[in-house]
């Protein structure tokens, strides 16, 4: 399944190493006394620069190949617009021109903001309900027996499958979209929370009991903090799922919204707009994923050390 496109693990090192210049990617430095002294004053920064440069080169190659394909007219222009056209479309969608505001009466950034807001609200509800649900599943056997299959059931459903039902129930305004995102985002959070709660080290539970901890201090003082790293990972996956689902959620009456924008553009064969939308989703996804990772580093500095 391709549930977590923006939070895809393959994107992970890309996002993290730009943020931190992570040291494991640094190749062993050649001991060359003549040249190494001035250049390696800050080897970490130097390496980070080098990887950024590599990334830029890769990007340039990609754009070049794209331009080449367009120039050679391998496919018709309507299907594959040039990078320049997409850039032009990006400018149009981001500005007010001839009295027209962006695309479909909204600037690109507004479409994106509306979608992000939906994602935020959806994931927010998913956290509020998913974490307690996961704790219950992980800690109470009868709850697990009943609800765990339900969570797995929901997790395997593609959002488009239940969108129709949500539209019948809730109409075409904001609520079916939020519902869809909640339903899509909650299972990964509940599942990873449950797994984390089951994986709480028995050693530490015993230590807390030996100190006189009852049920509540045990939950708040040991179970939740020890589960926190995995809960955060679950939330990161859920954000990814919400990202992939938001386009589905916005297929009906989705303007403003980046998914709605793409949907409308598809209807009028505006390939460049579709591509602008895709790039906007992908880039904002990378940024968001990096932010979530930074948050993890702040909240769980002990991760992998105990």
């Amino acid at each position, binding site marked *: 399944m391709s549930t977590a496109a923006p939070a895809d693990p393959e994107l992970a090192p890309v996002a993290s190493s730009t943020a931190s210049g992570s040291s494991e990617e640094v190749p062993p430095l050649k001991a060359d006394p003549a040249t190494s002294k001035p250049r390696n004053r800050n080897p970490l920064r130097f390496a980070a620069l080098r990887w950024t440069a590599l990334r830029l080169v890769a990007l340039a190659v990609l754009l070049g190949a794209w331009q080449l394909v367009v120039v050679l007219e391998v496919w018709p222009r309507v299907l594959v617009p040039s990078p320049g056209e997409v850039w032009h479309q990006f400018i149009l969608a981001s500005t007010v021109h001839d009295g027209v505001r962006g695309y479909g009466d909204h600037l690109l950034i507004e479409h994106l903001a509306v979608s992000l807001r939906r994602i935020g609200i959806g994931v927010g509800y998913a956290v509020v309900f998913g974490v307690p649900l996961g704790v219950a599943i992980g800690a109470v056997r009868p709850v697990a027996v009943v609800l765990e299959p339900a969570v797995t059931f929901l997790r395997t459903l593609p959002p488009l499958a239940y969108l129709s039902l949500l539209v019948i129930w809730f109409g075409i305004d904001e609520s079916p979209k939020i519902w869809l995102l909640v339903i899509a985002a909650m299972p990964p959070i509940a599942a990873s929370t449950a797994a984390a709660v089951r994986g709480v080290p028995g050693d530490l539970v015993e230590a807390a009991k*030996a*100190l006189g901890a009852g049920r509540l201090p045990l939950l708040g003082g040991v179970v939740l*903090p020890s589960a926190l790293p995995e809960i955060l990972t679950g939330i990161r996956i859920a954000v990814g799922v919400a990202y992939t689902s938001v386009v589905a959620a916005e297929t009906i009456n989705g303007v403003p919204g980046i998914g709605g924008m793409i949907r409308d553009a598809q209807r009028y064969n505006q390939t460049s707009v579709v591509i602008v939308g895709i790039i906007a989703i992908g880039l904002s996804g990378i940024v968001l994923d990096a932010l979530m990772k930074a948050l993890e580093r702040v909240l769980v500095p002990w991760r992998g050390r105990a």
Partner: protein
Amino acid sequence: MPPADSSTTAATEARAAHAVVLDRITVRYGDARRGRRGRAPVTAVSDVSLTLDRGEFVVLVGPSGCGKTTLLRIVAGFERPAEGTATTHGEAPTPGRGTGVVFQQPRLFPWRTVGGNLAFALARHGVPRDARAARTAELLSQVGLSGMEHRRTWELSGGQQQRVAIARALAGEPELLLLDEPFAALDALTREHLQEEVRTLASRTGTTVLFVTHSAEEAILLGSRVLVMAAGPGRIVEEIAVPLPREPTTDVAALRGTAEFARLRGELAASLRNTATS
């Protein structure tokens, strides 16, 4: 209590007079009743009886796998014996009720700082929030870690972590203290310092201590009584009384140099060699 059953009452009171009573206990792991089907249960400890008076300092020594940790876990209330009865202060052992435990590994909470680990214990024992900082500083100085409140637990050395674990177990001022090879990971100097600290603390506060070690030297220095265990299945095979002075003012460091200490240590070492080869 109703006078009708005076014999039971008397027995209960007799038990309550002791800090720990183990009465012919046998402990099995992987018992069929506990759902480990298809595996023969391991008898970790067989038919062990043991009584600790209040304020006594008893040391368990014996080869690896002879059931020392198992006995401690019974007394701590983490395991129940398959046969026989166990009580602490006259009641079935329950974790956290006046019994402090220092495990073989430090078992600190990595999401809390050193001070936070101690504060967790203090909070569980009803120490009000504004009194915790002072008490934390006091506990840390007791184990030679003054000023380490804000350190992350994983930044500490193994020995430092174990010292925090000791301080954390002392936070609740337990009546009964169980220590499982607490000084095994320490350097010699720190170990000696902490041995003296624990011995003095026990004689000063009257805390009952059950202490597990591999070291004959440590056993003689600390214990008022040393129990030698043997494996296969785990049992107590010998008891050595240690008639060294136990006043709060006793110079523990000086004890190490006395002829009496050397003699007892030699006796215990010989006994340990016998158990290992028999």
